[in-house]
Structure formats: C-alpha cells, structure tokens
C-alpha cells in the first residue's frame, strides 16, 4: 500500500473512531462525520486525478452535495435536541432514567 493509501485509510479510520467514541457533546460526533466526508472528498478528487480519467470528475461534487444534506440533517437533530433538552450533551437524554 502506498503512502497515500495509508494516509487516507488511517485518517478515515481515525475520524470514524472519533465518531464512535465521542464523550460529551453530540457536536463532536457531527464534526467527525464532517471530517470523514472531507477525507472522502479529497480521496475521490485524487483518485480521479491519479487515474487520469474524466469519468469520475463529477464524483466529488456529488459527494459534496450529499454531504451538505447530511450535515444539515445532523444539525437539525442537534438543534431539536438543544431545544428540548437545553444542551447537546448526550447524558441529558438518559438523566431521568433509573
């Protein structure tokens, strides 16, 4: 595996770990999700450039559009949570549970 492969795989994996193992704020999970999208965007761009093919040229833009949709959905959830619970801390959801 080349250096590029290793760099992208490991940074994607790190962001994934950051998404899964976030502690307090839901916002940090959303940030990691954004980081994953960014890495995918860069790797799609580089993939098209390295293979010198024009077929995949539109790929990054489509990914960007979908990423924007997903980010807005995540933020809407965050805002809804902030409206009902006051913060976006995850522990607030289960405070009144025994």
């Amino acid at each position: 595996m080349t250096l590029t492969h290793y760099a992208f795989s490991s940074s994607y994996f790190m962001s994934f770990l950051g998404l899964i193992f976030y502690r307090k704020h839901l916002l940090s999970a959303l940030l990691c999700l954004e980081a994953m999208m960014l890495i995918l965007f860069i790797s799609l761009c580089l993939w098209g450039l390295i293979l010198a093919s024009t077929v995949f040229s539109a790929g990054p833009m489509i990914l960007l559009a979908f990423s924007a949709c997903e980010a807005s959905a995540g933020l809407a959830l965050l805002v809804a949570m902030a409206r009902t619970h006051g913060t976006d801390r995850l522990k607030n959801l289960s405070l009144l549970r025994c």
Partner: protein
Amino acid sequence: MHFTTMILSSSLLTVFLILTLPILGTLNPNPTKSQWAKENVKTAVKTAFFVSLIPLFIFINEGLEVIMTNWEWMNTLMFNINISLKFDLYSVVFTPVALYVTWSILEFASWYMHNDPNMNRFFKYLLIFLIAMIILVTANNMFQLFIGWEGVGIMSFLLIGWWSGRADANTAALQAVAYNRVGDIGLILAMAWMAVNLNSWEMQQLFSLTASHDLTLPLLGLVLAATGKSAQFGLHPWLPSAMEGPTPVSALLHSSTMVVAGIFLLVRLSPMMENNPLVLSICLCLGALTTVFTATCALTQNDIKKIIAFSTSSQLGLMMVTIGLNQPYLAFLHICTHAFFKAMLFLCSGSIIHSLNDEQDIGKMGGLHQLLPLTSSCLTIGSLALTGTPFLAGFFSKDAIIEALSTSYLNAWALVLTLLATSFTAIYSLRVVFFVSMGHPRFNSLSPINENNPSVMNPLKRLAWGSILAGLLITTNITPMKPLVMTMPLTLKLAALTVTITGLLTALELASLTSQQFKTKPLPTTHHFSNMLGYFPSVIHRLIPKANLVLGQLVANQTIDQTWLEKTGPKMMTSINLPLISSTSNLQQGVIKTYFLMFFFTMILAILTLV
C-alpha cells in the same frame, strides 16, 4: 516507505507522544484535579502499553528492526549529533515489558499513595522517569543514551527522597546520586574516548570500527558506568539504602527498570566487548562477586524491602556474569523476566506493609497466608520464579545462564560463586515466605488487614500472570542471537536445580530450628520399642480412626457441601448467570453509544475479513 516499517516506527513514536502528553498537560496554570494521577497518567501508560504491542507483534512476525534518524541536532564538520532512535530486538521487547510493569505499579501506587497530598507530583515524577528510561532504551547514539541515563538518575534521586522530612531518606537519596555520579565518570570517559578516536557517537559507526582499535579504555569506562548504575560490588550500597523511598519507587526504579540500565548499556554495546577478553573477565568476576556478596547480605536481613533489594542486587550480579560470558541476549532475557517477578515481590511487600500498618520487619509478621491469601500466594509465585523453578518465568533465563556458565571455558571460580549465590537465593526466598506467610501471627491485632481494593489486587494478578508466562512467551517467540550449547553432562544440566533444592532444604531445616529446643540430656531410646508394645496400638488405635474421621469430614463438608452444592451445583448457576444478566440489562438501556460500539465491531470484522 514500506508499510510495516511505517507502522512500526509510527507506533513507537505514538508511544512517546502518549507518554509525554500528561506531562505537557501539567504546564497549564489551572490546578490539576485530584484524580488526575489515576485518570490521566495510568491510562496513558496503559494505552502506551497496548500501542507498543503492535511493534512487538510485527517484530515477532517479520523480524523487522528499524533505525530512525529524526533530527540533526548539532553538526560540525567532523562530528554529528542526531536524534536517532533504534528499534531493534532489545528496545522492541523491553518497551512493552517496562510499560506493562509500570502500568501495574501505577495502579498500585494510586492505592498506596492515595492519602499523600502530593500524589499528582509523584505520578508526574514516575512518568518522567519512564520517558527517560524509554529514551535510554531506544537510543541509537551515546548522547541520547546519556540523556536518558542522567534522566533516570535524577528522577531516582527525587523519588528516593520523596519523604524528605526523614533524614534517612535524604541520606539515601544523596548516596544514590553520589554512587551514580562515580559511575557516570566512566560513561563520560567512554564517550570522550569515542568522540576523539572513533569520531562518532552513533552506534553503527562504533560497531564498525571496533576491529581496528584497542577498546580497553572505553570498555573499562563502560564497566564502571554499569557498576555505578547497576549496583555492582564497590558501588553497591546505594541500592539497599534506596528502599527509603515509597514502595512503588522501589518496585519501578530499583528492581525492574533503572538498575538494569547499566546492564542494558553493556548489552547494547556488546559488539564492542566481544573481542576483549580482559573486560569480559572483569565483568565475569565482578558480577560473580556481586551476586554472592549481596546474596550473603540478604540472608540475615530483617526488613522485607531490604531483602528484596539485595535480591535485586544479586540478580544484577548474575546479569553481569552473563555479559562476562559474552551472552548479551541471555542477560537481556533475564532483564525482562526479572522485571515481572521482582516488581510483583515489591508490590506484595507494599500490600503487606500497608496492611500491617507500616510494619516492615519480618520478625513481626507471620501467618499472613490465612489473612492475605492472594498476596501471600503472589509472594510465593514471585519467590518461586526468582529461584528458577522449572517453567516459571525465571527458569528460562536463569537456567540458560547457568547452563552457559557451566559449559563455558571460563573462570571456574566465578561458576562456583554463582552456584553458591543461586542456593542463597533459595534460602533467603524461603526465609521471606516462611516468616511472612507461615506460622502464627506476630503482629499487633488491630491492623487493617484486607485485600478488598481492586487497585492492589489487579496489578498483583497481572504481574503474577506475567511471572508465570513471560519466560515462556519470550523464548518461544524470539530466537536468540547466538546458538546455545545444548549438550552437557547431566550433573551440569541439573546443577542449578540441585543447588536450589539444596538451599531450599537447608533453609527449611534452619527455619524449623527456630521453634525447637535442644534437649539438655539425651534420652535412652533402646527400650522404648518393646515398652510401647512395638508402637502398634498407638498407631493403629489413633491413626486409622483419625484418618476415617478426617476423610468423613472432608467428604461431607468440603466435597459435598462446599464443592458440589455451592461451587458446581445450584450456586454456580446463580453466580455465573447473575453477572451475565446484569451486564446484558445494562447494555440494553438504549444508550446511543452501545449502538455505535456494535457498529464499530462490525466495521472491524468487515475490515479484517476483507483485507
């Protein structure tokens, strides 16, 4: 760059980063939380241990060794000093061992020092010590090694004198610094000679120029450095005095890590020593003298920590003997296995001392096998591993060393002394176990004896597993550098075992003499046989009914009641199912993180099966 090389070097740099981060975290002006030590430092060392397993497994799988030269520090026309890290067999194997032992010791220290107001500073010192030790171990040039060397020396001074209100502790710390400094003169002499004559401090260049120079002077300097740091005879008194420090300090510095720095230096630079018979003989004789002298001193000590300290000194002498035999790999193997059981012995003694309300005299302990079963079992396991019981950790290294010693064409006097010291090891180990855990209690009755705290018991259990398995794991996975002599006469093969058993039996005999009284007048025994009717009624009328009754009690009480009905019968179902039930119901609370965790496991499985 090749994939596995990148993984190995980045993992080891990650280890450095993980260990340095808590130290950098103390630079902020906000006061640290009271749980900082336990949360940040211990988890940092634990994480670093797990990360350092990756290079270990890569090394075992592929035999990959990496030398990284990172930064050019000072470069003149003729002489370069770089930051250069060498990850070969020695550092890749030693780093996980040191981190495992340190993790256990830090967890123990969070219990032992929990009502010390400066506990956070204590943990910070231990962490700085650990970083200096890893710098020493991974150094590829003498300058970096010297940085690590001085670092461990300074932290040793600060940690021995931790309870600085006590005059003995200050004296001991000063002794440690003074004796280490004398050794440092040797190291600086060697470094200066190398800078002038060999034009470099990088180890690769040093090893390639050894054939063309007479290396006696720098090698003598290195032996002096090892004598100072590893407490060989002549510069040895600082090690027993260093027991004035807290028990975690004794366990980490003065048993597993710092004192092996001198031996490690000689192991690292062993290609320079291979062809110099004078220096090898000096190492051999010095090591033999050290091991027998300190083992003799350990025979009649009364303080439990001093006995273990002298035991450490004796094992260091044994390592020096191995270097004198031109077997650096065996010395390194002994370093690794010794770290486990010696740290465990110190942790057991710390647990005992704390339970008996700071009593350190073994004459005032006793009967702890019933009261502290886990601790005394671990003490026994550690002592057995120390004496070289077959197939525990110490056996693989110690027996290999004594076999190499017996089959070599070197000094027979050194062999005799080493065998004598091996039997002494058995004697003082039995003495510790006998006075601490056997017999009747000799301490005050209101001591807080308990084994309730998992911060103490988990490190002991972990180190016990290490003491049992470490020797086997290391020898089966890593091939030695030199072929060992495998054929020898049966007496020589069993020499170590024979002298150990002899020592054990002697010690048992001597220990049982403490509870007997010599008769003032010998009794005539000739007519006793017929007087007592040939002992027939007294044996048959007492022995057989007693055996029957005991068997009945055993069957009814232990076998049926305790074993079948409680452990393996109905109660086993409850005791196994209850944790399962509670953990399952805890998992299914509906918390988002659980779902993420399952997602993570699925991803890992998918990656592992697809790649």
